[in-house]
């Protein structure tokens, strides 16, 4: 396996007009930006839009030579993710013109989704203690917050968090997820 080019190398090459370096940055950053999008937008298609828009902005900044080190690049990417999520929430299709022009070339295919053995998971959930099972069901049924679950079940918010954490650890152990 070859040596991975550093971010500084990639940034320098992009500033010099190297298309392969741009593709490498997109390959690395695309899936990471997509995760951010899934977390904040809760929609695969909106996450894909985010990837396209953030990569456009990132490549533009790299071409201009404004991001020469790793910390700057990460902070710039995170800041752009935040701003773009706000934009996407306001007007999802606002940047269609840019996407039509560049979109298809920028977004790498998303990684394969991890597989969960549903029958085994059901057995693992059944093996939880009653409070853990109730908290898990209440939490994941509609992604309720600790405060909502606490109110619903008549236990403290801190207790909900402790119970949820314990349940998640047990489910990981039961499913043998690292």
């Amino acid at each position: 396996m070859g040596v991975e080019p550093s971010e500084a190398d990639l940034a320098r090459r992009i500033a010099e007009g190297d298309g392969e370096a741009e593709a490498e940055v997109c390959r690395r950053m695309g899936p990471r930006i997509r995760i951010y999008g899934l977390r904040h937008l809760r929609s695969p298609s909106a996450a894909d839009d985010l990837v396209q828009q953030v990569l456009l902005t990132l490549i533009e900044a790299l071409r201009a030579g404004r991001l020469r080190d790793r910390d700057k690049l990460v902070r710039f990417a995170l800041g752009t993710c935040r701003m773009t999520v706000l934009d996407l929430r306001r007007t999802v299709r606002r940047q269609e013109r840019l996407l039509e022009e560049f979109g298809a070339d920028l977004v790498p295919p998303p990684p394969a989704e991890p597989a969960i053995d549903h029958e085994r998971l059901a057995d693992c959930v059944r093996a939880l203690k009653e409070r853990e099972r109730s908290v898990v069901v209440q939490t994941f049924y509609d992604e309720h917050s600790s405060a909502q679950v606490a109110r619903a079940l008549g236990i403290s918010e801190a207790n909900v968090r402790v119970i949820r954490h314990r349940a998640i650890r047990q489910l990981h152990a039961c499913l043998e997820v690292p």
Partner: protein
Amino acid sequence: MTAPAGGTPERCAAPIDAVVLMDYWLGALPAPDEEAVEVHLLVCDVCGDRLRQAMALADSLRGLARSGTLRVVVSDAFVRHAVESGQRVREYAAMPGDVVQCTVSADDDYLVARLGADLTGATRVDLSFSTPQGAEIGRLADIPVNPDTGTVLYQESIAFAQASPDNSMIMRLLTVDADGGERLLGEYAFHHTRTIPGPAGW
């Protein structure tokens, strides 16, 4: 950006705890912790893959929670949300001493028993299941209860109920003290009549 070429992440010197990743996915982290996770995820594909595992687990748990197949204590908010989402919830309410004639249909999504009881001062409450002859066949120990509501909402597995032949079951809510002593809070008899075609017995 530490991932090697080819997209196969190798290692992370400081992996984010799985519980923290799940809290991140649930939006349950304080802002500074969330930012630290996001900065890390923008440079670490190992933890990105582990977050995808957490997302897949959360997705599967949501499916399981919505399947109606778990035996679990739920809440009014849960039932209300299910109804508002267009799900069919068959609910039977019982006060201590009640005898309830019940059934379930093929298009019910959830089956819930609303058990009324005075839960004031109860620190540990168990829900026990017995045959009409008094033999205990199961118990949910230390269930979450909200004394203010005066009810326990128990979700029976809809798959089990839909497959179940005619049968009778006694539910008991018991408060258990620190020495293991039990006090009956309420006893409820459920007589299930099968309305979905199927064998007469198990």
